[in-house]
């Protein structure tokens, strides 16, 4: 499928990236480039990513870890003179890269985002304990113990303040209509995959 898009990355972005049809509206003013809280760590700020998309630099854009540094702060969105939904385009680019298997390996935010989604998709609600344990153990058991130890004081404090429930590990929060919920998500995914040519 991706073959069809080789020569026209802008077209691909318009079709497969959330709010991607806005990219061509960017006038390269640079306001968004100074807006990202973790901006120092972006190799390519949003403005540059938009320029690269138009220049057809597919590989460079999709393998970048820049958009994974987006904190969804919406600074850019309220400042952009052209009203581009930049936050969502960043999410959409990251999603496309991930779906194509091009995103950088071991990108921590990507792992967290996947864990978060899988956690909620299972039961309908997020289980914070499983989510945080999953995050600590993402690099394997040894590192997980180290990570968990480092955050132990925080965790115990949260349990004491009754803001983390150790029993969640064995069940915890969830919705009742799980089967309807799962069927809904499956259908939504199907429709999206068809529309974006992932099917």
């Amino acid at each position: 499928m991706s073959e069809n898009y080789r020569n026209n990355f802008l077209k691909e972005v318009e079709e497969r990236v959330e709010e991607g049809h806005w990219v061509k509206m960017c006038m390269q003013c640079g306001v968004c480039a100074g807006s990202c809280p973790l901006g120092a760590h972006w190799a390519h700020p949003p403005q540059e990513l938009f320029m690269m998309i138009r220049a057809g630099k597919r590989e460079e854009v999709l393998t970048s870890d820049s958009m994974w540094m987006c904190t969804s702060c919406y600074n850019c969105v309220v400042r952009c003179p052209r009203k581009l939904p930049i936050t969502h385009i960043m999410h959409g680019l990251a999603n496309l890269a991930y779906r194509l298997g091009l995103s950088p390996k071991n990108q921590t935010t990507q792992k967290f985002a996947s864990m978060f989604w899988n956690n909620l998709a299972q039961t309908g609600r997020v289980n914070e304990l499983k989510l945080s344990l999953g995050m600590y153990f993402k690099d394997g058991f040894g590192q997980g113990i180290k990570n968990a130890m480092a955050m132990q004081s925080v965790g115990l404090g949260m349990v004491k303040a009754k803001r983390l429930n150790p029993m969640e590990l064995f069940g915890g929060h969830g919705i009742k209509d799980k089967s309807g919920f799962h069927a809904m998500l499956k259908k939504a995914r199907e429709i999206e995959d068809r529309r974006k040519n992932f099917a």
Partner: protein
Amino acid sequence: MAKKTYSFYPGCSSQTKASSDNYLKSTNSMCKYLDIELKEIPDWNCCGASIGYAEGGELPRIALSARNMALSEQHNPGMDLVATCAACWLSTREAKERIAHSSQTLSEANTALAEAGLSYKGNQAARHMAEVLVEDFGFDELKRGVKKPLQGIKFAGYVGCQTNRPFGLAGESFENPKYLDNLVEAMGGEAVPYDQKVTCCGGALAFSEPEKSQKQIKDIIESAYDHGAEMIVTPCPLCQANVEIYQGEVNKRFGTKFNIPVTYYSQLITVAYGGTAAEAALDGQLIRATRLEDIAKK
């Protein structure tokens, strides 16, 4: 004033024994004093927050919010939907606008919802609790219930991102929203001006990019201290958690000695209205808000 009733979306973090358990408890107390009835949306699900994008994509994320709104329309008709979590509010309102702007999205969302036997009409507003306080009550009305003014306490009102952008409260500026300060002052406290009021704390990346986010958190707390604040107050559960929980880590990393309580507006209002420390869920703070506890004891 007559009783007000809203369709309530608590969100995952506000569940019992979840990270903002204290937000939920104090919100319930605050609502009792204001004669607000919150009707929980039956069987609501997680909204996916912003971070759901990588695995979730677009339509599945919209479907999550559409399911909540459809359940709300069906079970709590004629009410506004109200969320206390900034991220929940944002996802819900964003999904609502996406659907309103595209008949294709509407029909796709409803095709997905049909699998769960639901349908979405879009006849309820999606609001944040702060909007309810400011717009449906107003500061003068809120002031009237104050029994124990929070006199002499200096607060840094930390609005953060998602309660403020991209929607925010009507009539407020993105760079310097005033409603949280006005709320503090309505309760008799002092709101200090400081320059990190709308700075992002890193959001979900506090977890996946701890070093980078803790720099943000440090800047926020430092500025609050520098401007004389004794306490931070926020309308967002993730802001609250990030700024409170990681202070120890920030201290280790930057050699600071931060130890500043981070509270919710609902806790301030509960205490000012004469509620007990338990009603304000002050036992839920990792860093005790002793000045509020003292007032609650009086």
